[in-house]
């Protein structure tokens, strides 16, 4: 089942083009990471998917138009937009009561179970909790909702490494079950590299790269090249080259692994390194086109 299908998704704010024709297809059970710089259009894309903003182009989420059928859609879609959007005056017990009251698919026992593993007290107000605890509380509420699509927009921004690790561990162990779909944007790419099944790079409102993680691991190789073989390596047209403590690290797209292994230590690149390479490529192409 296709959970999200977008064709030519566009959004213009005045003179700023936030989304410039995005095509996207997300199947059930995938965990898609949406990676992009600040202002690249990630949040706008997510807002369109969540029916929070109007858009041009075709977009279907769980077979519905998110803008016109938002009310029905929100029974099956859940999201955490940004850290710490829980109302500060609310008590933890009130948050549980309220979500239980309005959401037909909220499993309170599950939320309580998750909370009992944290230091969060039921009678605390959100304003008394640390930022990490607020994120835990929000995650507890969201994970107890039996939704088909979960959208996370920078859910761990500003949290320390321990909370971030716990956040994604809980998500993967206690929530994800292959019939649910998760969409996540984050700047802390290293946190999510191992949980994603799919990857999409957004740059200036366009899709700069879209692939599954299997594809990613097969296509891209990063090689720490022996100095004497640098020219042979460059002849294979790396998409990016960088220097780390005097060694050249070259990133290759679709070059035979056996061949690369002869040039130096080869490994799968981090998403962050690939992102920089792909963005560098894109800006070089733009400059080329400008000339």
């Amino acid at each position, binding site marked *: 089942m296709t959970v999200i299908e977008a064709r030519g998704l566009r959004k213009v704010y005045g003179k700023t083009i936030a989304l410039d024709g995005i095509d996207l297809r997300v199947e059930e059970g995938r965990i898609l990471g949406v990676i992009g710089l600040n202002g690249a259009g990630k949040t706008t894309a997510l807002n369109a998917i*969540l029916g929070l*903003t109007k858009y041009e182009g075709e977009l279907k989420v769980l077979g519905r138009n998110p803008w016109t059928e938002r*009310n029905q859609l929100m029974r099956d879609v859940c999201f955490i937009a940004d850290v710490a959007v829980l*109302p500060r005056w609310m008590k933890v017990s009130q948050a549980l009561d309220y979500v239980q009251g309005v959401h*037909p698919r909220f499993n309170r026992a599950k939320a309580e179970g998750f909370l009992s593993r944290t230091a969060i007290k039921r009678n605390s107000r959100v304003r008394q909790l640390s930022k990490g605890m607020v994120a835990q509380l929000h995650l507890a509420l969201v994970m107890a909702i039996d939704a088909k699509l979960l959208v996370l927009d920078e859910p761990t921004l500003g949290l320390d490494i321990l909370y971030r690790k716990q956040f994604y561990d809980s998500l993967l162990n206690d929530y994800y079950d292959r019939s649910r779909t998760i969409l996540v944007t984050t700047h802390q790419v290293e946190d999510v590299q191992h949980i994603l099944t799919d990857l999409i790079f957004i740059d200036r409102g366009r899709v700069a790269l879209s692939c599954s993680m299997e594809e990613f691991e097969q296509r891209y190789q990063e090689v720490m090249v022996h100095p004497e073989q640098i020219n042979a390596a460059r002849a294979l047209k790396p998409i990016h080259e960088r220097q780390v403590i005097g060694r050249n690290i070259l990133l290759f797209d679709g070059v035979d692994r056996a061949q690369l292994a002869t040039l130096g230590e080869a490994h799968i690149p981090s998403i962050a390194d690939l992102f920089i390479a792909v963005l560098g490529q894109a800006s070089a192409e733009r400059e080329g086109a400008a000339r």
Partner: protein
Amino acid sequence: MNTQMNVIPEYSLETPEIVPAAVAATRPLLWSVRRELWENNSIFIAPLTVAVLFVLGFVISIIHEWSTLHSALVDPQTRQTAFHFPFDAAAFALLLTAVITGAFYCLDALYGERRDRSVLFWKSLPVSDLTTVLAKACIPLLVLPLITFAMIIVTQTALFLLSTAIALGNGISTAVLWEQLPLWKMWVSILCAIVTSALWYAPLYGWLLLVSSYARRATFLWAVLPPFAVCVVEKIAFNTSYFADMMTFRLTGWYSQAFTPLAQGGASPADPLASLTLGRFFSSPELWIGLVFAALFLAAAIQLRRSREAI
């Protein structure tokens, strides 16, 4: 944990439809009203404070002005006013408190959630913008009037007990006092005042909710300056003040429509129901025009809540 998860049966897409439609529709509304009450405890605290202060003030004034009170009470001419004044003043003070509380509540209702970004949490739940805005409109139109009515009854009961003590202390029989203060009739009259004022002020609350959903800052200025500007422009351009008169009538008109004041030949306070003119109130076009505007303002506020982003 993961294996346990898989055991939990998957609910079908159709689950909510099994719930009777009426229950499904009112449940989010009731919970939304409840959460407004959690957030805005001034809805209770403001009238409670006024009531407590009023009763305290009444007790202090009895002790302080015992001698003048005594002379006022023994004279049948002034007795009525002396007994009645605190009751009317308490009702008026609580009614005014409700209107002011309601106005400030509305002004913040749809602005505050965007300012603290909690709107992103509320919108992540299956509660429509229609339900949310209606729940917020229920506070000044339904909840505050109910609380105010209850609070007036409690306050006046306290005043009544105190007045009984005063009457006995001044050698006036309780029968005379109770004749002067027909509580049931007074309360029916107060209920009418609360209902008519809420209906009359509905467009004001609607306007404030609309401003609250629109403004990115300075909600109070957005609420006050446009009507004020219209008054000024009208005065300069045409040297007339229809709009200003209309606004004044909007603020005070419910009373002159629903009651005939004593000075204009209304009934004596001994029979408060005789001064009621509900027929005139409900047949006044201003009421219905106002309600149409209230509906338009609310509809606009719902649309704005849908499209406006967090600040």
